[in-house]
């Protein structure tokens, strides 16, 4: 008991939490992230890395299904909690901590779990009915089952005309630094996306985009910049972006938070490696912007848009006046497939992260008119 108890107490000092954000719950997710930092806990990169599953906000039916899948993949000792509102974050994590420490309870949980290995899929079952069944052909090729009942990879021609295996890989909805509620149904050849289809989960249940305060929108842009920096593999700049975001949210002195963003902007703009790494990714020219009814500030490549996320925070007065409405998420989603086709996985992630933050914070029903 002594050694086990000691081990458990040490282990929970640095627990890893997989944080899942429901559409519209980004402020709750931010509160959870802040609570994690205060405890010295860390964000998990995947289910296998996680001790704790934290669900922020109220997930719709499809997202909840995906979350249950992910919960099955946590290795254990594990604990799960839902955080409905930002104010509940600390209490929820305290409760989770005691669940992790409870050795007897964890042994019971482990014994009750199925012995079958967890599947690698983290996405919900695809709901073909909604999409008019036009992907029937994709699935027809996958009739043959390989070991463990997993469909074997099927073949297709790659960009250069060579025959290559393809595999169907859903990106999202439970994926760190990924827009909440978004699923990309991709057909991958190697790590290149050969086909991409977009779905916004539970969009019909989500409330309409709302006007938000300027300081709030600046904070959201900082948060999006942090996600992009994480995806670009620059953790320390991402941490700085999160701290700038927290400054904007707590309403600490406006000049101080703006200067924090300014320092970050200078640091990001100065990095030649980052520019070299993001250059030409997801480049939108004037023609494409007009074709997809997107606003002019989405022009350029991922690096341009990352800097624009930060300059947007600098330009605005941090008063409480509401902003003009942001883009409808479905408008951005519709523009994604042609931009993403032919990109490798790293580029897909960066382009999505550079475009989606310019959409509204809350998901709107699919098919709703553009609102910019």
């Amino acid at each position, binding site marked *: 008991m002594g050694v086990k108890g000691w*081990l*458990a107490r*040490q*282990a*929970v*000092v*640095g*627990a*890893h939490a997989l944080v899942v954000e429901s559409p519209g719950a980004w402020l709750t997710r931010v509160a959870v992230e802040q609570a994690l*930092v205060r405890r*010295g806990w860390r964000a998990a*990169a*995947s289910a*296998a*890395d996680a*001790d704790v599953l934290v669900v922020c906000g109220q997930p719709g039916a499809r997202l909840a299904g995906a979350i249950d899948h992910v919960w099955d*993949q946590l*290795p*254990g*000792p594990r604990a799960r909690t839902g955080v409905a509102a930002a104010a509940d974050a600390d209490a929820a994590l305290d409760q989770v901590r005691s669940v992790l420490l409870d050795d007897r309870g964890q042994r019971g949980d*482990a014994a009750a779990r199925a012995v079958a*290995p*967890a*599947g*690698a899929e983290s996405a919900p079952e695809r709901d073909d009915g909604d999409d008019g069944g036009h992907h029937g052909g994709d699935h027809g090729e996958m009739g043959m089952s*390989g*070991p*463990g*009942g*997993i469909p074997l990879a099927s073949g297709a021609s790659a960009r250069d005309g060579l025959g290559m295996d393809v*595999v169907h*890989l859903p990106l999202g909805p439970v*994926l*760190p*630094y990924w827009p909440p509620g978004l699923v990309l149904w991709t057909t*991958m050849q*190697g*790590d290149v996306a050969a086909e991409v289809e977009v779905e916004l989960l539970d969009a019909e249940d989500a409330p309409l985009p709302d006007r938000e305060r300027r300081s709030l929108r600046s904070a959201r842009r900082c948060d999006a910049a942090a996600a992009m*920096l*994480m*995806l*670009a*593999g*620059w*953790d*320390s*700049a991402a*941490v*700085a972006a999160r*701290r700038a975001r927290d400054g904007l949210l707590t309403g600490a002195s406006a000049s101080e938070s703006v200067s924090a963003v300014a320092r970050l902007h200078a640091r990001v703009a100065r*990095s030649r*490696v*980052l520019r*070299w*790494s993001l250059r030409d990714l997801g480049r939108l020219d004037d023609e494409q912007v007009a074709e997809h009814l997107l606003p002019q500030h989405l022009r350029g490549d991922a690096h341009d848009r990352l800097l624009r996320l930060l300059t947007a925070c600098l330009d605005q007065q941090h008063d409480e006046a509401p902003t003009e409405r942001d883009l409808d998420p479905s408008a951005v989603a519709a523009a994604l497939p042609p931009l993403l086709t032919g990109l*490798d*996985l*790293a580029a897909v*992630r*960066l382009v999505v992260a550079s475009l989606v933050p310019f959409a509204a914070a809350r998901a709107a029903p699919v098919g709703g008119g553009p609102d910019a």
Partner: protein
Amino acid sequence: MPELAQVTQVAPVWAVVAVLLLGGVAVVAAGLDGALAARAAGQAPLSGARMPLVETARLLRQRRRTLVAADSLLWRSGGAGLVLVALLMVAVVPLGQWTLADLAVGVVWFNAMDVVVWALVWLAGWGPNAAYPLVGGYRFLAQALAYELPLMFALTAPAVAAGSLRVADVAAAQQGVWFVVWMPVAFAVYCLSVVGFSVWGPLAPAVGADIAGGVLAEVSGPDRLLLQAGRYALLAAGAAFAVPLFLGGGSGPGLPGWCWVLVKTVLLLAALVAVRRRIPTLRPDRFVEVGWMALLPVVLLQVLVVSVVAVIGG
């Protein structure tokens, strides 16, 4: 030819000390990384310095997991192999006047070990039979294609200057001036490659956040602990091997040789750990171009300069 340097090959049982030293230095690296991360997040650095202990406890307590149709044997051996390779690397590093293995081809031995890392990281990515780890494994191979040849030539430069592939001879050849002073390009390329084969910092796209941890995405518990420990151990072994190769071995005022080797190792290791906070990931598809178009020519030039100097001087 320079006369043979005096080193004593110690009994194999001393490998235990080598394990402890390598482990200790790796823990220092992990603690430093934790402290730097905590400071960046606005927390007390000391709370982050406990990271190695806390993470070890967490992963020892965590259950292992497997996936449908995973190749468990290759998956687990890929993870566990990294620690072993790091240990085999430091076996040829003289600690002052002692060494575990006084090989006549010690430099080549180190090179062979770092090539084994290719297989191990790829197997760790391929074993779980899941998309993200597999992408991570292939990313590592692409990156390794970019750094491996420059690394080989960077290792050649000190060996040419010393006229020997024996690590102790290379260290002894630096009695006057350290090799880092007149072959800085080889040293820089060597350090970059150490960061590369340790899957660390700017050369860690194989475990990137954009693929949910890549090679680490599906691994948990003790298996994850071995993989992570292996990365730190490789970083430590790479730093340790740079000491006889470029940093004058055990030479230095006041302290005994073994002490200087440790001090130099830890200082270089701290610099390698800190690099992670300064530079974003170098994406493998773009880094390959740098490796072949920039690193390889400049390191070849470096070897040419070293060879000319060696011929004239010899």
